[in-house]
């Protein structure tokens, strides 16, 4: 690992200032992504600003829902009684990711900010517009088995690797950030972005902005939920495709639906059209297959990820069956 300087921050304002002062300074939370990237030479920081002492670990009820502090660990969130009770989809998604040890270290903010697992991004000998803008996309004509089928651009076909993000976008979470210009709120769906011509930007956070918390609205999907993750081994692997499904049922009628996918795009992929289609319908294979077909409109595969065009709609069908059961 290249050497770097270290600052331990005791207040958010100080942490933000420390990061703004140097062009290659980064916030450090659980370290499970950042330290890995530093070891690989993908990130070469001059300074790490340790935000762990900041009082952002709380998980608290708000007037409308639940607030998750940016430094609450993935385990703390997944195991919290209020999350299990009101937002079981979030618990399922978090527990489908990484390993128990990593989830004990990983934080809400760090999970949102984790970089893609595209091999071309990790291998500094390879071209990658995300790591080194203008160098080209190695995956476009390369081994693109893990890559996007929605919303990609000729500059980048990488995917957002997070499981937690898929549940967050489905649940309409809101991100609270603090920066040099003050505080603002970002709907989760607008937090991550599509690659376009600037794949080096994963999200809409500006330099120096610190995630303070994520707010969940009042619990609306506490019963009929499923998180289906398909990967190369049963556990401890990133998603090829994942589906978060949440239904509100009145007797045998779907009154509301949330559907999102992971492993398919540069951002957690919300499936609004399929959700609209499901409302007012009766659960059943035909309905779910149609919803999956609607969800897959506009999908485009590359040489090695053609299988996702079949796997994704099947995963949607299966997740909806589980959720409605």
């Amino acid at each position, binding site marked *: 690992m290249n050497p770097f300087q270290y600052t331990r921050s005791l207040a958010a304002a100080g942490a933000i200032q420390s990061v703004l002062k140097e062009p290659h300074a980064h916030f450090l939370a*659980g*370290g499970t992504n950042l330290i890995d990237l530093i070891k690989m030479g993908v990130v070469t920081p001059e300074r790490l600003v340790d935000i762990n002492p900041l009082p952002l670990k709380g998980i608290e009820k708000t007037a409308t829902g639940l607030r998750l502090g940016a430094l609450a660990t993935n385990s703390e969130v997944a195991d919290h009684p209020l999350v299990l009770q009101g937002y079981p989809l979030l618990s399922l998604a978090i527990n489908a990711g990484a390993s128990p040890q990593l989830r004990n270290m990983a934080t809400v903010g760090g999970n949102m900010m984790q970089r893609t697992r595209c091999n071309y991004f990790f291998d500094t000998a390879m071209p990658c517009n995300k790591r080194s803008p203008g160098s080209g996309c190695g995956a476009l004509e390369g081994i693109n088995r893990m890559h996007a089928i929605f919303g990609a651009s000729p500059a980048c076909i990488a995917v957002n690797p997070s499981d937690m993000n898929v549940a967050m976008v489905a649940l309409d979470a809101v991100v609270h950030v603090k920066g040099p210009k003050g505080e603002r709120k970002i709907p989760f769906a607008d937090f991550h972005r599509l690659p376009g011509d600037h794949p080096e930007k994963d999200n809409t956070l500006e330099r120096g902005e610190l995630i303070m918390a994520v707010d969940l609205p009042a619990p609306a999907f506490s019963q009929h939920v499923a998180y289906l993750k398909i990967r190369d081994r049963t556990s401890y692997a990133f998603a090829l495709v994942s589906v978060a499904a949440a239904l509100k049922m009145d007797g045998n009628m779907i009154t509301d639906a949330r559907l999102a996918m992971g492993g398919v795009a540069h951002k957690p992929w919300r499936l609004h059209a399929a959700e609209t289609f499901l409302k007012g319908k009766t659960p059943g294979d035909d309905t779910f297959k149609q919803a999956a077909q609607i969800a897959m409109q506009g999908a485009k595969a590359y040489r090695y990820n053609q299988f996702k065009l079949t796997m994704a709609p099947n995963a949607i069908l299966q997740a909806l069956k589980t959720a409605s059961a």
Partner: protein
Amino acid sequence: MSTKPGKDPEKPEKEPAGEGLLSGTRRDFLKQSSLLSAIAFAPATVVKAAENQWPEKVADAFEKVDVHLEVNGTKYNVQVEPRTTLLDLLREQLNFTGTKKGCDRGQCGACTVHVNGVRINSCLSLAVTNEGKKITTIEGLANGDQLHPMQEAFIKHDGFQCGYCTSGQIMSAVALVKEGRTQSREQISEFMSGNICRCGAYSRIVKAIQEVKTNQS
């Protein structure tokens, strides 16, 4: 800017007999080359160190940080570079070599230790972020000559072959029981999935865990 090595005030002018010219040259070479390669990384402090002709120990320019922590019940005050991982601090500086380095990237679990009672991968945790924390390693499980029940169970059920993953497996398993994730074989497998065993001792590891769980309840 000069890269000439300066004099080391701590060392006598002449090399002690027996080491002679060769080691002196080697040392000078190491000083120079480490300085040059450090400049290639070019963080501001290194360049400053070079400009000020501090050729002795460039690493010192990266401001070692004081860390106070407890390992297996003993308090330590250590100085570490910010980039030192908890794993390297334990193994290289404090000689707790029972904790193993497999992948060094969070992918295998060989480096699993408990921090304030919670299992983590020490290869992805910077030592400096463990200020004031209580660490337990595999060396801290036994009570004198009496092994921890999980260690006994691993021996009884042959929960290993080469043994490289074993300290990580046992640290994880002890935490798993505490977390109450031993309801079924499936649950044990899922919540032990952060520990890879290249020798494939998995089914025996599960048996060892089940025995400890049964004996406890």
